Structures are given as structure tokens and as C-alpha cells.
């Protein structure tokens, strides 16, 4: 069967050349802030740049009337049965274990659930979702209820393969980010680009099922980072795309 996801036009998240001066200036102010140990200055310069870019993109969106919908998909081969993979995923309360941008998912009756995501600057965004399609051991799809702050739908499919006892899991996500383009710009800046997030979420799901835990270095020891070290941290998204180092919580959870 084919999935009911349309070809939504995804805008490139890369800034165009025209935006480079803005980015460079903000980057220099941020770097100055980092050197002088003024994190607020660094952050505000970066955020203003993102904000301005977002406004610009928003205007462009309105102008050309493009859809602001984003789609993302990813696929991973996992060494476990489709039954086991399905069982873990079907309990939506498990999702925050490998989707670090989700704080919690509470399941209710009749396939309904309440999702809470961590937004920019520690804010929280919640919405209600319902299950649209559920074929045991094969696939689950869900969507947010009408009127949600974040309109989204998702589907996970489990097929046996590529060899005996294995599963190929395919995740498809489609959503309108919070605050339209500003949310997207923000998300991109901090490495939560939808395609990247879908891929890394599914990779973490695989690790959790196979290894029983998700590899991390967040919270490990290191020497003084300096400018070079901090830049590498940002570049490699090691702080934003890792499972929480909060040990007590994650230790109680084993697949």
C-alpha cells in the first residue's frame, strides 16, 4: 500500500548567500561573547540572527505561497523481531526514551495520547494525538487532533528482513512546526532539522533494541574546551542530540 503523505515542498534550510552578512556578523558577536565568557550576549546575537532569518523566510513563504509542511523519513535494519519492535513502539510512553525532544507521552483510552515536547529555551508544547491505523506487528500511524498547536502525523512500519529474525523499520513524519517558519529556523539552528531528527530517533531506537541502551558521551569528563572545543561541540551537535545524561531516569529503563 502507499502512504497517504503528499509531496509537500520542503524548503532548503540552508541560508542563501544574501543572508551571509547577517550570519557572519551574528557569528562574530557570538564568538566575542564566547571568548569574553558572556553566554547571554552570544546567545542573544545568535537568536536575533535566527529570528531575522525566520521572519525573512516567513515573508518569502507568504509571497510564493509555499506550503510550510515538512516531511521526513528514515529506515533502519534492526536485529530483533518485528513483534518486539512493534510492541515497544506501540506503547507510545516509550517514545521519549529514544526521541529526546519529547518530554513525555501519556496514553489514554481509545488510542488517544497526550504528547509534550521540549521547545526552544526550555518551553513546552503539548498536543493530543490519536491512532489512525494500527496493524499488529506491521505498522502504526498516528496524527495530532484538530486544533493542536503542532499539527503532525507519523507512521512507523516494521517489515521482516533483511535476513531471518530481523526487522526493517521505516519511520515517516509530517508536520507543521510550532510558530511556523520561526520554529523551523530555530530547530535547524540547533540541529533539530526534521530529516536529521527522524534518522537519529530511529537510530536510537535500533540501539535501544539491540544494545539495551543508547550510546552517549554527554556528561563525560574533558579538559578546558576553549573556543575551538565549544565550536566543535556545536558543530557536532553533541549537546543537543544526545540522550539525557540524567542517569537515574534512564537507568530504570531497559528495553
Amino acid at each position, binding site marked *: 500500500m502507499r502512504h497517504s503523505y503528499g509531496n509537500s515542498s520542503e524548503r532548503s534550510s540552508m541560508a542563501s548567500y544574501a543572508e551571509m552578512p547577517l550570519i557572519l556578523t551574528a557569528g562574530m558577536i557570538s564568538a566575542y561573547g564566547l571568548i569574553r565568557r558572556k553566554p547571554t550576549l552570544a546567545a542573544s546575537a545568535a537568536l536575533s540572527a535566527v529570528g531575522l532569518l525566520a521572519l525573512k523566510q516567513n515573508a518569502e513563504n507568504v509571497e510564493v505561497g509555499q506550503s510550510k509542511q515538512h516531511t521526513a523519513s528514515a529506515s533502519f535494519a534492526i536485529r530483533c523481531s518485528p513483534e518486539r519492535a512493534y510492541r515497544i513502539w506501540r506503547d507510545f510512553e516509550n517514545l521519549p526514551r529514544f526521541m529526546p525532544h519529547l518530554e513525555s507521552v501519556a496514553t489514554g483510552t481509545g488510542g488517544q495520547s497526550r504528547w509534550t515536547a521540549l521547545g526552544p529555551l526550555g518551553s513546552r508544547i503539548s498536543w493530543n494525538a490519536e491512532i489512525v491505523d494500527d496493524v499488529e506487528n506491521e505498522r502504526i500511524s498516528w496524527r495530532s487532533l484538530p486544533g493542536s498547536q503542532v499539527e503532525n502525523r507519523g507512521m512507523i512500519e516494521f517489515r521482516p528482513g533483511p535476513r531471518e529474525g530481523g526487522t526493517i523499520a521505516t519511520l515517516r513524519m509530517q508536520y507543521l512546526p510550532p510558530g511556523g517558519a520561526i520554529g523551523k529556523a530555530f530547530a535547524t539552528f540547533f540541529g533539530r532539522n526534521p530529516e536529521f531528527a527522524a534518522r537519529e530517533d530511529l537510530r536510537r531506537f535500533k540501539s535501544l533494541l539491540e544494545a539495551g541502551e543508547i550510546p552517549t558521551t554527554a556528561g563525560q*569528563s574533558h579538559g578546558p574546551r576553549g573556543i575551538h572545543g565549544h565550536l566543535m561541540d556545536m558543530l557536532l551537535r553533541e549537546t543537543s542530540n544526545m540522550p539525557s545524561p540524567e542517569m537515574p531516569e534512564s537507568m530504570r529503563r531497559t528495553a
Partner: protein
Amino acid sequence: MKAVCWMGKEKMQVHDVPDPKILNPRDAIVRITSTCICGSDLHLYDGLVPTLAQGDILGHEFMGEVVEVGPAVDREKLKVGDRVVVPFTIACGHCESCEQQLWSLCDNSNPNAWVAEKLMGYSPSGLFGYTHMMGGYAGGQAQYARVPFADMGPIKIPEGLKDEQVVFLSDIFPTGYMGAENCDIKPGDTVAIWGCGPVGQFAIRSAFMLGAGRVIAIDHVRDRLKMARDGGAETLNFDEVDVLEALRDMTGNHGPDSCMDAVGMEAWGHGLQFMYDRAKQKLRMAQDRVLVLRECIQACKKGGTVSVPGVYAGFDDKIPLGAFMNKALVFKTGQTHMMRYMKPLLERIQKGEINPEFVISHRLPISQAPDAYKMFRDKQDHCTKVVLDPWAEAAAA
């Protein structure tokens, strides 16, 4: 704790950093008793491998005592008080790669797999104390280290063996052994080995263990050539002879059955090719100097095997693929699949078939690590291998 940190090109410093913590259920913390500087650390020291960050703790050859284990560590396999050698590759033990004993290709141990995927298509396993592309795990040139998947990698060391006898099970002995195994040695074969550093030394001895009739070792550091002869190899000094011609003469115009590159990306040599490689590396147009790899391909017999335990990092040109293809060579390489080799090689040490101590030239306190890097890189003071004691000063105080 004290730890050796990379602060920039040719800039190592010992810093006081927080002690490591258990971060994942299968972690353990090891109090390190011996730790070494590896030849591959020198590529990092020289700033040639991308995605290292200022402040990173280096070191991937270490051993010590388990002082803490996470809640999911199988106590049958590892418990507090065990004395262990830790392999430099990190592996979960349950993915398809681990299941096939391809431990250095574990699917689940590199938290930055996406970075490696950009460069390599798919990510190999995480490594201790190496680049962030390879996981960015804090290394073992420190007083303590956090060891992920601790019930899978570390091997317990029985009483009666000194640190110096077993610490090289963490990397260079298995790496030399796998280099030799990758030569597909048949009884009586001639094996040529470029590089008589510590890995080359173990490769020479491993080649004989695997049935080689003759090993020809190539280097230009006299102490190392002597050490190679002590191990039973014939030697060639590339400062004095044309290696390709000498190998042709020594093998009756046949070529060695297999050729091993135990040098990697910072090869030395003479002539135009070397100058070309060096200029490109200096200009950051290439990560690697592929001189030795070229010679291996040229020197190898028709239908022979080229084994590459030497480390390469990037995209390189001027590799004689024509010779490689037309001579029908086999190419074998990879980071070492550590857990395949640690137990059998420990048994060989226990039986007295080999005493890895021979390779050590310096035992130093950790505070002298920055100087030791320079000494090892520049091959000063007859340096072949440095073992660091993280607690020397603490004990003296």
C-alpha cells in the same frame, strides 16, 4: 583526576578534570594502572585527523581495576575489583557486526555515527580517546576512565602477570596480529612488513606464529631494525637501499606473498613521491601520505595480499589502482576486531610464547606525557613505546 588533554596541534597538556561518572547502564569505571601512547595518537598530536576538539582526553591503550559498574553490567562477566585490559574499540556485542565478530564495526557504539556516515557512508565502532567522528569518547591517558558496554570488551587478567606484559592486549599486539592474519599466510610464505614501530614488531612475531617462512621488515630507525632482527626478520633500511629493487632481488623476481603497511598516513621516504605527499599534506590538500601503500601494491607478488593495519584518515590520490587491479591483489584492512584476539593472545603470553615487554623503551609518570608525545613522534632517545603511570606522583607524594 589527572588527564592528558589535546589542546591543539602539537599541544598536549595534563589537566585536572572531574572524575568520570557512569552514564549508561552497561558502563564501568576503571582506575587506570598503566596507559600507553600509541602511534595513532601521534596523528592526532600532529593535528592531521579531523574532528578532534580542544580539551579532548586522549589514550586508547589502558588497563586497570574496575571500581564501579552500572546496573545492567552482567556481574558474572565483570565486577568491582576485577583487573582488566580494555580494548580500544567499543562494541555492543549484539548488533549484526558484533554477531559476525566484526567488533570494530559495531553499529551501536558511535554516538556521532552521522558524522562518520558523511565521510565513509556507514560508521565504524566508537573508539576511546580518538576523534569525535569515531565517537568522541574520553580516553585512557588519565587516572580513571569510563568504559561503555563494559560486560563485552574488557578482559580479566589472571594473577601473576605484570601490567607491562598484558597492557598491549589493548591495541598493538592484537593489531599486529590481525595485520598478519590479514596477510593470509600459508606455511613458508614471505611477508614484507613496512614499519618497525610497535605494531610492526608484533606483526613480525605474529607472522611467524602464523607460519611465515620469511619476514622482511622495512624501516630506517636503527634500533627498530635491530628489534625486528631480534624477532627473526631480515631487514631493509630505506635510507640505504631501493626497497622495491631489494625485495625483487631477495625473492627471485617473484615478490613477497603478502605486503603489510604498518605505517599509515605519516609515512617517510625519499624522492619525488615523498615530497609530493608531504606538500599536499602540509597544504591540507590530502590527509594522508600514501607512500608506503603505493610501495606495498608495487612490491606485492601477482595474486598476493596487501594488509593495512596502518591508519589512514581521508581521501587520497596517486594510488596505483592499475597495478592493484591487473595484478589481482587482495586488500585487507580495518580497525582491529579486538575481542577476537584478546583471549587467544593472552593465552600465548601466559604460555610464555611471547613477552610483549620487549617493545617498551620508556616508563614515565603521566605528568611527562606532553614531552613523551614529542619524543615518540621525533623518535628521540631510542623511543619505541611509552608506558605511562597515572599514579606515580600521587604515590610519591
